[in-house]
């Protein structure tokens, strides 16, 4: 994990576009005036966030499940493979896809702040930004997964990936059994946001959303 700050070579999170600075200023002033409460704002955002970006990521995963060539490409160069579907980050960040298999389960966190693959997953859920998740995902990933209702076979390893401003991760969950006859759109329905962060698994076909 690299956190150097060479501005000539890297984009980093700590630059506000004029819009970001303006929104932050409005939020500060309106909060000071008692007109908004940041918690109420988060709550409104949260009502929408599950419906926003994760569909992009779900399409990436479904394509990787259905097309071995695409899966290979995604493994080798996730930034390019994902960009080929039209999903590109506006901050120029690189993507890496990490594949769950019989031996390893992958979990993504940003221990330092809340770096998140917006272009494929939309907005980060509130818990992803919370200090509790950020610290515990590394120290006790199995405990964190249990809280999300995910119990893995004892022998399965958990690999935790720490995101940075320059590199974001997308978990490719294991394809559930009994999905051979499904097309990519139907497969994408099985891929939840949490499955692509690693705090969930892909849905079974009968539980399709």
């Amino acid at each position: 994990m690299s956190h150097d700050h060479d501005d000539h070579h890297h984009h980093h999170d700590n630059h506000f576009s004029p819009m970001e600075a303006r929104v932050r200023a409005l939020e500060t002033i309106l909060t000071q005036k008692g007109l908004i409460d940041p918690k109420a704002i988060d709550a409104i955002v949260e009502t929408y966030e599950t419906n926003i970006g994760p569909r992009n990521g779900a399409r990436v995963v479904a394509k990787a499940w259905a097309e071995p060539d695409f899966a290979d490409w995604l493994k080798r160069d996730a930034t390019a493979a994902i960009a080929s579907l039209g999903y590109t980050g506006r901050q120029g960040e690189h993507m890496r896809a990490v594949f769950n298999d019989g031996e390893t389960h992958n979990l993504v966190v940003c221990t330092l702040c809340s770096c998140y693959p917006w272009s494929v997953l939309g907005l980060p859920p509130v818990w992803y930004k919370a200090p509790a998740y950020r610290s515990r995902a590394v120290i006790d990933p199995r405990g964190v997964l249990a809280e999300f209702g995910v119990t893995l076979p004892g022998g399965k390893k958990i690999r935790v990936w720490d995101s940075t401003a320059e590199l974001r991760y997308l978990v490719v969950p294991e394809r559930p059994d009994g999905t051979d006859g499904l097309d990519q759109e139907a497969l994408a329905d099985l891929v939840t946001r949490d499955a692509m962060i690693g705090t969930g698994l892909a849905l079974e076909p009968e539980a399709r959303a």
Partner: protein
Amino acid sequence: MSRCETLADSPGLPVSTEGEPVFAEPWQAQAFAMTVRLHEQCVFTWAQWAEALSREVHRPGRAVDGADYFDCWVAALSSLLSERGVVSEAEQSVLSDRWARAAEATPHGMPILLENAG
């Protein structure tokens, strides 16, 4: 007015096939949520909001494909708040500059605090 009606009454808002708004970046969702909240608090009516937004969207030089929709959204929110005497434009721009400076002065991984603006 319910949130659904609010959304139905925001012409040009990018929405998903499920009819939910689509945000490309967190600040867009933040601006959207603040507007919804201010309306709920009766700081302005939705008609006043719609008029302010429409004025920005139709300003010459705006993107034809709506790529700058949320830039318009923020500009509309700024000017509506200043017109209604809630927050002056001067106050807004001074604080925006301070936030931009604070971000630049903060290393990655550290929380961006206004105090960091120096």
